[in-house]
């Protein structure tokens, strides 16, 4: 299959005696949006880091567009692949625009000037996350959700073909949550998004992968994955799942008992 963009085989990773990601194999197709759900500590962030080549797996390998990422340079990888971290902090007081400009790092050489392509990518990315009015504002003065949007803009400015987002919506108000996820879905990008909101995952993701204790326990269409028994088993909750009236996607109602 030529449309396969990301292909992970038997990924295992751990620290010391502890195995954190166990034997995960995964395929993501071109332009697909894959949701990644699972309880705290189930290994979502770790799996994303492995897929992005930020950690070296103990065993197994990751291929991107048919190339083993271990054989690519960091810079070559960063031109194809952007990563939005779960939390990224800094003491440095850059402006919003300067932070987004960092996204152009893999495309610029040490002494090359600022090209019109760079400028266009940065301007478009800032507009995309609705931060035009605040582009001159200092990083330290932004709210949590604004910071998150700036990080997403930086990833967009990288002009990647693949984007990994680790809980990109966890500081956002509901308007921006939906806005960002809609954007991720509609972009011509292959993306893997770790999410905690099951309804949002079910609304915006083409497929959903479920992690539990470091293992991948399911990876399929939302309607196949979001079942009452799976939610009970993985998240230890009681929920009612019914198809949404307009979209037909599963809608989850949590029961208080």
């Amino acid at each position, binding site marked *: 299959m030529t449309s396969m963009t990301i292909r992970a085989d038997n990924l295992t990773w751990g620290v010391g005696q502890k195995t954190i990601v166990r034997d995960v194999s995964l395929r993501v197709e071109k332009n697909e949006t894959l949701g990644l759900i699972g309880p705290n500590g189930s290994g979502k962030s770790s799996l994303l880091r492995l897929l992005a080549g*930020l950690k070296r797996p103990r065993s197994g390998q990751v291929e991107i567009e048919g190339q083993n990422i271990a054989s690519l340079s960091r810079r070559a*990888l960063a031109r194809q692949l952007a990563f939005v*971290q779960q939390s990224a902090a*800094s003491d*440095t007081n*850059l402006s919003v625009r300067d932070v987004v400009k*960092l996204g152009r790092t893999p495309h610029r050489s040490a002494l090359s000037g600022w090209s019109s392509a760079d400028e266009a990518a940065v301007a478009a990315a800032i507009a995309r996350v609705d931060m035009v009015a605040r582009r001159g504002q200092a990083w330290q003065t932004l709210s949590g959700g604004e910071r998150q949007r700036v990080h997403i803009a930086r990833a967009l400015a990288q002009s990647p073909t693949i984007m990994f987002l680790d809980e990109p919506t966890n500081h956002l108000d509901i308007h921006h949550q939906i806005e960002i996820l809609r954007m991720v879905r509609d972009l011509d990008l292959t993306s893997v998004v770790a999410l905690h909101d099951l309804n949002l995952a079910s609304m915006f993701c083409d497929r959903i992968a479920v992690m539990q204790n470091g293992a991948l326990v399911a990876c399929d269409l939302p309607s196949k994955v979001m079942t009452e028994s799976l939610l009970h088993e993985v998240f230890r909750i009681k929920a009612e799942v019914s198809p949404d009236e307009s979209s037909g996607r599963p809608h989850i109602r949590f029961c208080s008992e």
Partner: protein
Amino acid sequence: MLVALAFVVALATTIGDYRIGFGTVVLAISNGLGLTGADIPPIQESVVWDLRLSRALVAALSGAGLALCGAILQALLRNPLAEPFVLGVSAGASTGAVCVIVLGIGAGSLSLSMGAFAGAFSAFALVALLSNGATSGPNHTILAGVAAAQLFNALTSYIVTTSGNAQQARDVMFWLLGSFGGVRWPDFQLLILVIVFGLAVCLWMARTLDAFTFGDEDAAALGVPVARIRLVLFAVTAMITATIVSMVGAIGFVGLVVPHAARYIVGPLHLRLLPASAALGAVFMVLADIASRVVATQQTVPIGVVTALVGVPFFAIILYRARPST
């Protein structure tokens, strides 16, 4: 900035125990450069050219180098308190110097500077080893630096207390606090090579340093080969610092504070911050050297004392003006 630098250097060559007019100084310098052949007393010409000018220029380069290293380490270690000596370089240098002064290792064949340089580099090597070739995180590196510094300081104290006499201990302390007294042209030539090379490498990597803003892993996600860059930049800063320390002693404060002042003026992006730090460090150090000679004409006040005395008030002003508006 360059004008300011030229001005303070000229000022530094004019001021001294032996009074020479400003006009004579300018003539002496242009004679030295081979531009003019003015007729001035040879002794005045020699004082200006051989003693004062070389001293002022070495001071300028030392200030530039220390400030540059400080700016780089603050970025790499993401710690505003980082300065050129966090990697244990000055402690290592003092141990090396003490070995030469007190123990007489090398028996005259090794100069004080060479001993200090060797000590500085062994300290750096130890830190690099302890922090797994700079692959582990910034805090790990800082701790390794602290450990190395403690070890070498203990070694120094041990050597001084067990085999030195009071005079030697005083020599060592003076040497450590820094002095531009003994520098001559050959020092300048070595130093300018090291600084120009170091500055070139650092400017080449300036944009890469910006990518460290949100941490090592984030820099890696932006395509930076983190471990390699860290190792190269640590080695370059260690080389610059070791050269300066072995020449003029461990002059504190400049490498810590000047980068903050520069950041306040030109902002945090390194393509501007690095040259600004270097220039500001140069001006500051020359001024401090002038102050050290003016304040106490008969004694030599160690330059490290002056940099702190002059620098702290400046720094206080910056801290006050840059305080977050609440």
